[in-house]
């Protein structure tokens, strides 16, 4: 019996599985596209074929050049049809195909016709398509129409032209900049979206003109901005103006703050949130300014919309980094978010609480986190681990709870990145909190007993070799290390052999027993393990070979390679096996690219979580290695401190330069990291001419130019100064970048032979007292203070004058001294009238310094400070007072 005809019904479940695109195949669809050439066009059929083409493109399918050209030519035929639906599809299809410059010409006249059509919608779409496929020459031809379109009364046409302008600004800025007047007019439009697009474009046109942006903001903040989206943009631009203008010196008020605060009462959540975030990000924001913003964010925390909860907690998380006390009011709301369904929100809540909590709440929090950890993904766990590490450094007395927590989660299931984050954290805590060393090492030993990651086992063995011998009972670690020799793979075994050797070298009482163990390794199945055992037995004097000097042995075991690893790898790859042995002295020591500056990678894929940050000491190690490889600086002795990079140019200038100050006992080296951002230029013989006339105690000794600085490949030039030994000399240096510039042909990448000498003014650089201080924390300030004793103590009182707040005064003094705040005392509770801050550090000459600051503030905001300094050297205690007295 024939089946009754079933009417096609989209809702029928039994049909749901049949996709209209089932079995779709590119070749077949391209064949179908021939219908576009039919003299009698069937609009419905053509639309269906275009849909299929779109489906293919949206699935990530690509067309070859020939295929794309063929389809493009066919599609242009469809302009003959008067069917409106089909025309709309044609516009979209042309944009998707993005034809090449030589093909565009086919369609230009049709589009130009549509652009002048009486039908508004033809105009809007033709503008969008033309601007997508156009080049500079065509743009000048249609510029007149675009300018008209910007002020068109139809908002769709105006928006089309404005959004086109935003895109074209990237490729043809000089043309788009000529549309300023029209765009300015569009900003006043009554249509909300037109205003939004116009504001975005106008700001982009004027972004390098501070005065113009400031004027724009001033006028718009007074007037009425209709769309919430435009209001958000305005808030962003306002914060930019605030950042660049600073406080009003007469009244102490911040310009535009009232506007931002007013936006907190806007009806759109988006605007409220944007304003709250802008306020929290103001530089040097006071608690009075913060309070209203925190209040609205707190309300968002209990919103039913996850996006609002997320936005609020994310912002509070940032605020907690700088103003933990301001966020404490939200603690209860945040605690309830720990059980939020959305794990991103829960993780942010936890990490914020870890920052805002005080010492007494640590234990309770850790209990809550333990339950939470089992049901979140590794990437969130890593964030929590990092927060716990910071918490532990802030409250060193709580190390027992926190290290125990870390070791517990280390034993649970988890991937490599997560485990690595935990191991790295324990290593950092051991380095920074001496009391945590023994228990930390013990936990790491337990971990390697059952560790599936070779990389982590070898990392821990290496660390154990350096730290283990210095503990009270080194022998207890030997069992764990030797177990590795018995149980693990060759890489780990080899590593364990090296660690055993380090114990042998450092602990004389263990030496004979270590020899016994190393001799057993001589029968290992792996070459590397046997070779290492033989080598170490001979170096340590356990074999039949000669006994080397003790210092030499330690240098060999603990010293660094002295050559950059990249260069070593390169040389080894280039080494042809021959009679002649590889000579490590042949490895170049010069660092080619800039290894220390992090390259920015915007829009990177979100999956790769990247390597967790390495320990804080690694940067200085890398600097030291690099500097010692430069012969001119090798005689300067041991590097005391390297500063964080200081920017000497503004963002987005032709040449980006920052400088790192390297402090030695009797010298200072400025490392200028330069980047050339102009593709058409090659810079050669790059130096920085430093004028030290305002730095009397410094005299320039040498300068190391950079031979060549190609586009987007950072390089370094150095200038070294001599200064009185051990003296914290300060001064101001003005800098001028000098170079020979050569034009580069962008098509071939080749530079011209002749260059022109040129200069580029950089910002001034200060060497300040804080540069001579290393931030080194102590685990128990009181004990260290008592044990240091009052022999070299000096106490004095100072008036700091009228200050904005107590917190601001405390922050300023910490910055001047450049010391490490201890036990969270850098945080001043709001409304308190007095505060004690504890600081520790190591002053140049490797002298330990402890500082106890007591502050008091009175009604008219006069701040007084008592400064008590203890150190191992009276002159250093005096020097600290001298820094405060002159600062």
């Amino acid at each position: 019996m024939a089946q009754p005809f079933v009417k096609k019904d989209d809702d029928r479940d039994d049909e749901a599985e049949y996709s209209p695109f089932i079995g779709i195949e590119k070749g077949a669809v391209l064949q179908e596209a021939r219908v576009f050439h039919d003299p009698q066009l069937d609009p419905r059929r053509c639309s269906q074929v275009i849909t299929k083409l779109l489906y293919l493109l949206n699935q990530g399918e690509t067309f070859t050049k020939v295929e794309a050209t063929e389809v493009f030519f066919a599609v242009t035929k469809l302009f003959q049809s008067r069917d409106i639906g089909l025309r709309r599809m044609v516009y979209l299809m042309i944009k998707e195909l993005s034809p090449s410059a030589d093909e565009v010409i086919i369609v230009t006249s049709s589009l130009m016709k549509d652009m002048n059509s009486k039908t508004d919608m033809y105009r809007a779409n033709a503008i969008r398509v033309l601007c997508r496929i156009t080049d500079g020459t065509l743009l000048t031809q249609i510029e007149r129409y675009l300018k008209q379109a910007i002020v068109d009364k139809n908002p769709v046409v105006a928006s089309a032209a404005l959004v086109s302008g935003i895109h074209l600004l990237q490729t043809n800025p000089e043309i788009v900049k000529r549309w300023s007047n029209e765009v300015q007019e569009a900003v006043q439009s009554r249509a909300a979206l037109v205003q939004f697009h116009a504001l975005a474009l106008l700001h982009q046109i004027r972004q390098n003109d501070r005065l113009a942006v400031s004027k724009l903001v001033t006028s718009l903040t007074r007037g009425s901005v209709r769309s919430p989206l435009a209001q958000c943009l305005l808030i962003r631009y306002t914060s930019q103006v605030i950042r660049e203008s600073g406080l009003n010196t007469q009244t102490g008020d911040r310009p535009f703050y009232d506007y931002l605060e007013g936006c907190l009462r806007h009806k759109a959540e988006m605007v409220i949130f944007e304003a709250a975030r802008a306020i929290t990000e103001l530089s040097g924001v006071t608690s009075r300014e913060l309070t209203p913003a925190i209040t609205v964010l707190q309300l968002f925390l209990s919103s039913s919309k996850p996006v609002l909860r997320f936005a609020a907690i994310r912002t509070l998380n940032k605020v907690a980094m700088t103003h933990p006390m301001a966020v404490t009011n939200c603690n209860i709301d945040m605690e309830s978010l720990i059980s939020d369904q959305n794990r991103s929100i829960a993780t942010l809540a936890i990490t914020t609480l870890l920052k805002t909590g005080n010492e007494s709440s640590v234990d309770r929090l850790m209990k809550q986190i333990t339950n939470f950890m089992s049901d979140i993904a590794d990437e969130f766990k890593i964030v929590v681990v990092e927060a716990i590490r910071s918490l532990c450094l802030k409250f060193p007395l709580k190390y027992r709870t926190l290290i125990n927590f870390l070791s517990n989660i280390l034993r649970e299931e988890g991937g490599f990145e997560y485990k690595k984050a935990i191991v790295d954290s324990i290593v950092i805590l051991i380095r920074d909190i001496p009391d945590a060393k023994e228990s930390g090492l013990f936990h790491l030993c337990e971990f390697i007993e059952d560790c599936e990651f070779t990389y982590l086992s070898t990392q821990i063995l290496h660390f154990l070799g350096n730290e283990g011998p210095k503990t009270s009972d080194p022998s207890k670690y030997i069992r764990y290390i030797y177990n590795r020799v018995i149980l693990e793979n060759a890489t780990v075994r080899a590593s364990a052999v090296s660690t055993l050797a380090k114990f042998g070298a450092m602990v004389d009482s263990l030496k004979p027993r270590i020899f016994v163990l190393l001799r057993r390794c001589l029968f290992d199945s792996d070459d590397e393990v046997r070779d290492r055992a033989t080598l170490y037995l001979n170096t340590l004097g356990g074999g039949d070979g000669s006994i080397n000097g003790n210092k030499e042995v330690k240098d060999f075991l603990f010293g660094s390679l002295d050559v950059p690893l990249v260069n070593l790898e390169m040389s080894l790859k280039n080494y042809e096996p021959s009679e002649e042995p590889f000579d490590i002295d042949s490895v170049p020591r010069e660092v080619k690219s800039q290894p220390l500056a992090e390259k920015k990678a915007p829009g990177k894929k979100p999956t790769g979580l990247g390597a967790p940050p390495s320990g804080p000491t690694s940067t200085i190690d890398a600097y030291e290695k690099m500097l010692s490889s430069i012969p001119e600086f090798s005689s300067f002795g041991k590097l005391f401190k390297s500063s964080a990079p200081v920017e000497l140019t503004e963002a987005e200038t032709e040449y980006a330069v920052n400088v790192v100050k390297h402090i030695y006992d009797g010298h200072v080296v400025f490392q200028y990291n330069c980047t050339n951002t102009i593709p058409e230029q090659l810079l050669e013989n790059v130096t920085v001419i430093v004028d030290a006339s305002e730095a009397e105690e410094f005299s320039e000794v040498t300068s190391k130019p950079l031979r060549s600085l190609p586009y987007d490949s950072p390089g370094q030039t150095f200038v070294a100064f001599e200064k009185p030994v051990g003296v914290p000399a300060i001064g101001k240096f003005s800098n001028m970048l000098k170079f020979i510039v050569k034009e580069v042909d962008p098509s071939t990448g080749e530079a011209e032979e002749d260059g022109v000498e040129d200069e580029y003014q950089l910002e001034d650089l200060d060497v300040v007292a804080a540069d001579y201080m290393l931030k080194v924390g102590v685990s128990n300030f009181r004990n260290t203070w008592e044990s240091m004793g009052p022999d070299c103590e000096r106490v004095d009182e100072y008036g700091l004058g009228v200050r904005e707040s107590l917190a601001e005064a405390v922050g300023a003094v910490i910055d001047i001294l450049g010391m490490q705040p201890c036990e969270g005392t850098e945080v001043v509770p709001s409304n308190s009238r007095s505060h004690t801050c504890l600081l520790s550090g190591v002053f140049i000459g490797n002298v330990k310094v402890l500082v106890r600051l007591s502050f008091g503030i009175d009604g008219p905001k006069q701040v007084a400070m008592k400064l008590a300094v203890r150190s191992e050297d009276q002159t250093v205690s005096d020097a600290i007072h001298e820094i405060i007295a002159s600062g």
Partner: protein
Amino acid sequence: MLLAVLFFNLEGNILVERFHGVPAEERLHWRTFLVKLGSDNLKGAKNEELFVASHKSVYIVYSVLGDVCIYVVGKDEYDELALAEVIFVITSCVKDVCGKPPTERLFLDKYGKICLCLDEIVWKGILENTDKDRIRRLIRLKPPADI
């Protein structure tokens, strides 16, 4: 910048993907990442319930509508709140075109119209239209009703 708008079916197969300013070699990572994000979180989710995540400076807002999962990814000015606005427009338009939260079949039946809607909503990474009624007219080349 609105970096991407993607539609997947419930099995994690792509229905629509539109990237803006994301290099071709990074797109596969995005697909995999978003599918995983969805499979971890979207089970049992209610229609149009919003989910949010961030990674470094990139934000992701995603949701389920019928048998279709929708993801929008943005950075800079397109933060989680702006993206919530974008996904709201997208879901309203899809519902409008399909007449209800779509099955996969219904979504594919209306594929052409949905592509046109997306073209009106996002243009090369910038939000262009936010009103579903206006968009419904624009995809038929009709001027907005309010002028």
